[in-house]
């Protein structure tokens, strides 16, 4: 069982008996309470409120006793008339003062006495300095048109392909002598020196027949 009932139901049971509730309200009530519980609680709540009437009819104590305790802490605020009364002038003195005042007024009025002093015109030049503060706020709207910028990026790829020669070049053929006449250049070309290329260095003298023959003749 729940520890407490919802505020909505609690408000309903404070005011209405179960029969006076609408269908929706009855359904709401039945989620948390039985009909008997609701009606019992309603009776208790209603009778408790009625019971308060007996206490409500009793008059509170007079505030005078409290004011007496407070004493000087509480200030008595009085009206202007009460303040005048509080001065408490003797009646005869007030009467005499009143008569004297009345007599003076009558005296000045009777003699046509002008209490207004002579007016001497005086020109006073006043230097006025005006200070004007102007505060303006301008808002400028500027329209800016721009053409779309087209950037074309072209990439050229260069691929180097190295192709090796079919036959190796002899070192001599590459190294051309400096003082060779132009007509003898062809002699050193690769195509015309196959025999030289065929000769291997370190060849024995005995292997060359012509050379041996020459040596023998000598």
């Amino acid at each position, binding site marked *: 069982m729940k520890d407490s009932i919802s505020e909505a139901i609690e408000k309903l049971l404070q005011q209405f008996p179960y029969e006076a509730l609408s269908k929706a309200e009855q359904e709401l009530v039945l989620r948390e309470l039985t009909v008997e519980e609701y009606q019992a609680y309603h009776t208790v709540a209603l*009778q408790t409120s009625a019971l308060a009437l007996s206490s409500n009819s009793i008059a509170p104590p007079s505030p005078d006793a409290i004011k007496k305790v407070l004493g000087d802490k509480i200030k008595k605020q009085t009206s202007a008339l009460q303040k005048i009364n509080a001065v408490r002038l003797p009646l005869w003195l007030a009467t005499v003062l009143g008569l004297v005042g009345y007599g003076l007024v009558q005296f000045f009025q009777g003699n046509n006495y002008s209490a207004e002093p002579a007016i001497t015109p005086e020109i006073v030049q006043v230097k006025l300095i005006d200070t004007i503060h102007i505060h303006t706020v301008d808002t400028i709207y500027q329209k800016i048109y721009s053409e779309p910028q087209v950037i074309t990026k072209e990439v050229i790829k260069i691929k180097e392909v190295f192709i090796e020669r079919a036959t190796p070049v002899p070192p001599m053929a590459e190294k051309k002598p400096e003082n060779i006449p132009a007509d003898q250049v062809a002699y050193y070309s690769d195509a015309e020196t196959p025999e030289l290329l065929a000769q291997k260095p370190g060849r024995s003298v005995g292997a060359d027949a012509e050379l041996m023959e020459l040596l023998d003749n000598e």
Partner: protein
Amino acid sequence: MHLLTQGSEVAFDELYQRYAHKMHSYFHKLLYQDNELAADFCQNLFLKVFEKANSYNNSYKFSTWLYTIASNMVKNEYRRQQNPTPTLFIQQSQTTHIDPQGPKNIDQEIFQKKLQTALNKLEDKHRLCFILRYQEEKTIKEISEILACPIGTIKSRIHYTLKKIAEDLKLLNPYTNRNERFNQ
């Protein structure tokens, strides 16, 4: 309240006129219908209000502040009495109870007397909650502020008290009787 902090008598009179009756009856209900005790408490309350006017926080309702002071005074009184004899208060309630409108019928008169007895028998914390809700007609939120308790606790106490009193008065509850009659 500003004038009261300056010690204005006019302000004091105005507050007294507005709240004295209500607070006196509140004490009367909580202090077992003892009229003299309620009058003393009411006087002390307004003395405290005058003296503590500076401590009043404008963000709260004045009546809530007033009820908070009053409830604390009652709690202190309960503590002072420690274990009040319920029978004494029951007798007091029975003798001092006067219905200003006169008894409507005998059944109701008896029912109300029993209800008063049941209320007086309650634990202090439950009685305070219950009276604030159903006799002073304060909202749950206001009660939680006055008693400095969470809303859930107040709801729980009210439900508990309703149930307890309904059970105590089961035989006198006209609706229960009617149901029993129907069942028979």
